[in-house]
């Protein structure tokens, strides 16, 4: 067993211990996954004459599980993650904070994806 597979197996334990069910959607395609959410963070943006805050949240799951329409894909603009909290659906569009990418890998072997989202209702 390589260290890379160890990482993936260890993450499976984390998923079963503190994962939440989510629906990952792109257009009319979607897939149900179990993701490990980060704590909610609030970010402030200031424009010319206004201030705005938004809840930011990341979701982690194995890259191999993001399979839409029979092919493995990577997160991109326009995708959404829906989490049901106390019976209420919260939809988080996938976003790129600070002009960065929409996701990053949480390990050196590109096994675990960390997807950046913001809650927009």
């Amino acid at each position, binding site marked *: 067993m390589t260290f890379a597979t160890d990482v993936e197996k260890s993450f499976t334990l984390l998923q079963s211990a503190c994962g939440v069910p989510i629906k990952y959607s792109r257009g009319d395609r979607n897939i149900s996954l179990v993701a490990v959410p980060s704590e909610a963070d609030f970010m402030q*943006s200031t*424009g*010319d*004459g*206004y*201030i*705005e*805050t*938004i*809840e930011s949240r990341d979701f982690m799951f194995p890259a191999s599980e993001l399979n839409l329409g029979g092919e493995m894909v990577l997160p*991109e*603009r*326009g*995708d*959404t993650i829906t989490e049901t909290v106390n019976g209420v659906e919260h939809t988080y*569009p*996938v*976003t*790129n*904070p*600070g*002009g960065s990418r929409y996701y990053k890998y949480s390990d050196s072997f590109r096994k675990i994806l960390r997807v950046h989202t*913001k*809650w*927009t*209702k």
Partner: protein
Amino acid sequence: MPDSSLVKLTDACFSHLQSQSLSMSFTTAKSYLPDFEREELSGVEVSIFPQGQQSSVSARDSEQYIYTLNIVIRMPITPSADPDLDASLYFIEQLKDSLRLTSLAGCAYQGIQNDPAYDLEALAERNELISILTATYLEIR
């Protein structure tokens, strides 16, 4: 206590915009602290707040006052790889045109700036269109 000219102008702008019937339905608010929460935004919101004033002598016995108001337009945009803003930008143009050449609270319309047309960062990161109209009015007294 009487209101300042800037507040009277802000109130008049608020009432004017509130009475408009445009291509999108919207809510209007007067605000002194434009501090918003993105997750609370579910429709088109227009907020008006006073931005500033300048005065200078225009004649031996009068001054001219230049007042500026900021009109912040916010609307959610459906997450998409390539967002379509055609209808939103048309609405903003309608809103801008509704103020065109209209005197408010005894102040003469001077013009409106809308540059940039929308906040690129808000669109990219928050799936939201934010556009700011800066309207300028003149009063001589």
